[in-house]
């Protein structure tokens, strides 16, 4: 694999005394759609602004498309397109003018793609920006970014103002972008969106990346839930290593199990004679809640919230 498109290591960023980023690591490989998850105020936008060279990292190393985003901002920006979380436009320009302007400032726009995306997002380009809603302003920035030929798209909560129909259009567009081999960094707090689109996920909390890897990788770090109905007495299953929170009801049992113990536990289940068996991998929501659901949980064993349905 070639050098990663985004490679940030140990990045610190302070605003006065407030530490916005705390030894943050973020790596995105070429052609990946990378999810960047965290609630409001966790440092997602700050990270993106460091990547764009709008803010300077206080320490750590940041490489973007093989260059230094602070020093080589202009040359690097020719190869990327950015959609901010809260798009503010020039109130006396129309949406169409703003799209063309942003495209030209980047170094060109594909007229055919521009037309195509305008239609798909159902955006009227003749309206003055001051009359656009938040969602429509976001569409302007999205069309400008998607219609470009950028290798890298940096999207900061791009769907926060879009309705569900437009969100579906957005999902489709990102899939196409991925098929074209382009790289996408998608910051979001909408888990289903990330789950649908992303190859890798980085979860950020208080300026620090607390989890990162492919969705499969992350799932391995946590527990699956198992619901089973067996011929024999399910009680002995409760005491097996790796089994947590067992609940029995006659011949039914449900519990959660550490990923590394899943195999042995399931063989024990089958040995009791399976009538029905459902095993769910953890959803991203559970992964997320593991880090955020209970703020007081100890860092190593903070597993509450995630398992309970």
């Amino acid at each position, binding site marked *: 694999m070639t050098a990663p498109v985004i490679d940030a290591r140990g990045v610190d960023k302070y605003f006065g005394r407030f530490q916005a980023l705390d030894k943050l690591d973020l790596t995105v490989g070429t052609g990946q759609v990378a999810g960047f998850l965290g609630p409001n105020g966790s440092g997602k936008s700050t990270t993106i602004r460091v990547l764009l060279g*709008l*803010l300077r990292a206080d320490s750590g190393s940041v490489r973007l498309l093989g260059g230094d985003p602070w020093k080589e901002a202009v040359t690097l920006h020719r190869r990327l397109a950015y959609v901010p979380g809260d798009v503010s436009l020039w109130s006396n320009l129309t949406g169409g*003018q703003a*799209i063309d302007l942003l495209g030209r400032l980047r170094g060109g726009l594909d007229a055919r793609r521009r037309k195509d995306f305008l239609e798909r997002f159902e955006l009227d380009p*003749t309206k003055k920006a001051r009359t656009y809603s938040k969602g429509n302003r976001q569409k302007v920035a999205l069309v400008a970014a998607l219609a470009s030929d950028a290798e890298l798209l940096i999207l900061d909560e791009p769907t926060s103002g879009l309705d569900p129909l437009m969100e579906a259009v957005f999902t489709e567009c990102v899939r196409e972008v991925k098929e074209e081999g382009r790289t996408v960094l998608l910051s979001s707090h909408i888990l289903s969106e990330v789950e649908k689109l992303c190859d890798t996920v980085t979860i950020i909390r208080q300026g620090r990346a607390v989890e990162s890897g492919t969705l499969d990788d992350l799932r391995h770090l946590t527990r699956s839930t198992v619901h089973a109905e067996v011929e024999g007495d399910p009680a002995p299953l409760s005491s097996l290593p790796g089994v947590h929170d067992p609940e029995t009801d006659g011949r039914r049992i449900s519990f959660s199990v550490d990923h590394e113990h899943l195999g042995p536990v399931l063989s024990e289940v089958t040995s009791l004679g399976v009538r029905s068996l459902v095993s769910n991998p953890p959803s991203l929501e559970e992964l997320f809640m593991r880090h955020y659901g209970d703020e007081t949980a100890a860092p190593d064993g903070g597993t509450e919230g995630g398992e309970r349905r």
Partner: protein
Amino acid sequence: MSGFTGTGTLTRFILRRDRIRLSVWTLALAGTTAATVPVLDDMFSTVEERQGRAALMDTPTGIVFGGPGYGLDDYTLGPMMVNEMTMTLLIAMAVMSILHVIRHTRAEEESGRAELLRANVLGGGAPMASALLTITLVNLLIGGTIALTLIGFDLAAADSLAYGLGLALGGITFGAIAAVCAQVSGHARTASGLAFLAVGLLFMLRVVGDMAESGGNLLSWLSPFAWGQQAQPFHDLRWVPLALYGLVIVALVVAAHLLSGRRDLGAGLVAARPGPEGAGRLLRGVTTLQLHQQRGSIIVWTLAVLLFAVSFGTLAVEVEGMFETNPDLQAVFGTGVDDVIGGFLSFVTSYVIMGAAAFGALSVLRLRAEENSGRTELVLATAVGRVAWLGSALVVAALSTLFVVVAGGLGLGLGAAAVLKDGAWVGRLLEAVLAQLPAALVFGALAALVLGAAPRLTGLLWLWLGYSILATVMGGLLEFPEWAMNLSAFEILPRLPVEDFEPLHYVLYAGAVLLLGALSLVGFRNRDLATA
């Protein structure tokens, strides 16, 4: 009427929100008066000195910034106050009232905060009512303090009260004018621009009227700038002119209220039309973007300065007339009529330069709003470098400042040349304004430095601009020492054609402006962008 529900709460909220802003205005205006009165008293202690001063107030410049000249024949402290201070105080109170009313009506709607409030139990008329109520309170407070100050200096109580009330009513009138302007446009900037335009036109109306006839003619009576002085406090007090303020205020407030009832929240009377589907060929870089964004304000400022300049230029003929009929004036100014006209016009060039300087600073500081709103972020995330972004804004600001300066010089020159039938004035006055160009540019350059290196220090910039204007306009009267005069940005370069051009000062001043600009680019390159 339920349309005004919540006015009381909102009034208290405005007073709480603006407690510092309004206190500063009150203290500054009342304080200036309290400081000036003893100076006037002290400076002109003998009858000869007082009447000498009165003769000066009878000159064109004296009439422009003084008034119709009631009480000049017995120029004691009271008439002195009325003639020397009224216009400065009125203009300041007009500016304060306009800014306050727009800030609490149209600007609130534009930002969306009004929507948040209006969704609560709040009548549609409440925001405007509370904005006008608060500005009425503040104007009365300032007028009252000034009246008490004058009474404190042993001036007649009734005249002092009439004078203070006149000032207060004048301020309130401009607040009411702003309330009407706030209904017309959907943008706070356009609305305040309209209101300031009204200030300029009404001021000129009084000047032209007062120039034409001693004591003013009908034109003066059309302007709220005149009524306070027409009440003739400390001369021959009559209260009737003050009633005009009452009538006009009521009419304006009713008009504003009716207009506001006819429109939706956030909308102007002029509806937004659809625009082009794509960007034209011109809109392709940051410089054209900056030009496009500033087009409106460049046109408005240029026209305003041009109008001001032409009307002052034409006053040259009045100067000529006065000089010929008034032997005292010949004594004060000495020799030739051209020197007197030149003296008058060269003093007016300072006003052109002040206007251009304020415009230049505003033009650069616009970038701060761009940055705070996130639009700068959007641009800098494309292949636009920071130096190119700020640099393009500086180039546009500098060129449009030059444009305004040239318009001012040309206007003065054309006005003077037309009435004096001497084309040489065009060249002379163009030369005169261009000889002060660095003073017009320095505030834009300083604004850039503040923006690039220390965005929090913007207040200092306005402080210096305010001081420079005060020193240049009032410094002579208040007998500022030479070092204090030299702190004014407008006093560093000589005023042509009366004074001689000094190349060395010019080059040094221009160099300082360029240096400030260059430092601002370095600063902007090395700082974090403000994030929304």
